[in-house]
């Protein structure tokens, strides 16, 4: 499978092996009327920082669940570093920072203990966290700037501090891919800037491929090489520089389109490369009309 993905990437002229490959992925929750994801094709080269932007309910978290192998029942193909998602997760090659609602803040753990769980939970019980694991914990804490918080209880951290601690926990596992789900929820603008700087440090320091999903454009724009727009279907990609106020308005009009029922009529609003083919000027979008006509965009709807 790994060879298949790698050779396919080569055929497409992409540089380097793919960290994540989704091909024609569709998924419908049991009992749901409409699919949560429809024919999503996504290629993420290793080392890239990809932001996935979309409205609430647009399928962002579902896509992460599928990439992590936490959710089955999809159609299409998903590979993570050439492996099945479940195998990649079991191998510890992919780490995940969830929306922080899942964390039990009453749990009596210090930041260092919580981060150590990420590094050493697989260690046999008769062995303490080894020197190598402890070194990874300290390196992760330093990288996210949480060294001074190491002895603080996780229940007493602010939103931004907790976010850094959770990222440190993920990094301490030494993953090759880091997925972050809505990392900027509850963090102010200054915190989001720090988050973007942190993602850059992670790439520079560890070469980790990062995928950040958010409905908040500010959280996506500053820390990504490429931004994809997901609203059930993956529409297009854009460099952060192309995220002009006009483009933002169009991206977030997905919410409006969904509310007024335009989505069901095949009308989508896309973000495009700054200076690229039209569509941001409000006069219509070539890819939208292609989609509405049943045709594919330049990349076949793939990103």
């Amino acid at each position, binding site marked *: 499978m790994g060879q298949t993905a790698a050779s396919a990437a080569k055929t497409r002229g992409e540089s380097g092996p793919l960290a994540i490959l989704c091909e024609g992925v569709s998924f419908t929750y049991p009992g749901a009327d409409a699919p949560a994801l429809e024919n999503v094709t996504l290629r993420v080269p290793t080392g890239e920082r990809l932001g996935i932007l979309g409205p609430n309910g647009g399928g962002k978290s579902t896509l992460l669940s599928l990439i992590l192998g936490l959710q089955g029942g999809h159609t299409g193909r998903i590979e993570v570093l050439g492996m099945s998602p479940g195998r990649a997760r079991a191998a510890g090659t992919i780490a995940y920072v969830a929306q922080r609602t899942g964390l*039990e803040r009453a749990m009596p753990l210090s930041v260092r203990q919580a981060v150590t769980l990420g590094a050493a939970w697989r260690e046999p019980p008769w062995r303490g966290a080894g020197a190598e694991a402890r070194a990874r914990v300290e390196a992760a804490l330093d990288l996210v700037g949480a060294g001074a918080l190491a002895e603080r209880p996780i229940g007493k951290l602010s939103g931004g501090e907790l976010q850094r601690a959770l990222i440190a926990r993920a990094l301490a596992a030494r993953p090759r891919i880091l997925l972050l789900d809505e990392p900027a929820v509850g963090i102010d603008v200054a915190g989001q800037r720090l988050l973007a700087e942190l993602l850059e440090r992670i790439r520079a320091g560890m070469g980790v491929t990062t995928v950040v999903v958010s409905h908040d454009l500010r959280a996506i724009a500053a820390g990504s090489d490429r931004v994809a727009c997901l609203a059930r279907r993956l529409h297009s990609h854009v460099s952060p520089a192309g995220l002009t106020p006009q483009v933002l308005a169009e991206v977030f009009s997905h919410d409006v389109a969904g509310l007024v029922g335009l989505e069901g009529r095949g009308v989508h609003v896309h973000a495009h490369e700054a200076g690229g083919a039209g569509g941001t000027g409000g006069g219509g979008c070539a890819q939208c009309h292609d989609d509405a006509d049943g045709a594919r965009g330049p990349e076949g709807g793939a990103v």
Partner: protein
Amino acid sequence: MRTLEYLSDPVLRSIYLPGIGVGALAALACGIVSPAVVVKRLGFVGQGISHSAFGGIGVASLLAAWGLIETGGRAEFAVVVAFCAAAAWGMGVVGGAAAGRRSGSEDTAIGVFLVASMALGAILVQVAREHALASGRAGDVRSWESILFGSVSVTGMEEVRLCAAVAGLVALSAWAFRRPGLFWAADEEAARAFGVPTRAVRAGLMLALALVVVTTMKVAGVVLSTALLVLPGATALRVSDRLATVWGLSVAVGLAGIGAGFVVSFETGWQPGPSIVAALVAMYAAALAVGKR
């Protein structure tokens, strides 16, 4: 001091010492799982499992009335544990399925299993009693009072050995699976994403709960055994936010509750079960008043 009389008199000591031993071992087992129960908000699950013991006792009583097992023996213990474990599994499966269909919740499933087990237990104990009376073995069926509130008079060295085995098993499991267990308790969603077998961890905790409930109810009774699962951990978590301190305090509070409860029971003549719970509640109230969290 009637307590000293109880403990110095050879006859009384032989009656109460096994009960105190069972209580101490149950407090050890409960104290180990209690912080996880509190953090994961599994108190109602614990109550559901403890009340499902009614059904287990009903089945065991019927088997005893038929002469297939002995009342109070290992076979009865195994039957009740198996019933509680099956009920815990059922609560998880039905609750999960109901939540998935959005037609109910885990709480509803627990409530259904709880009342169904109590009803089944009540019916089977009555049937067993009638059968035992008819066949001249009335002593083979437990009294409702001992099921509800426990009875030290039914405990002997056999129960002490059984409880020691259970406490040892719970302590060993907690040590062996401390890392995946802590990860699951702290952040279940992330733990699953990191590859922690969260379903197995939850199932293991449910089995541990079933074991400690059945162990505890000998002394504290079915209704009150929930208190030993919840109050030590809740008290410790009010006082500290350090992992080792919380777990140590949880066990210490459970042991202190058993000790204080028996002293109150000896001094006043009240039942040990309610006395133990009263002592635990008093410690929790004190922690609320002075606790830092």
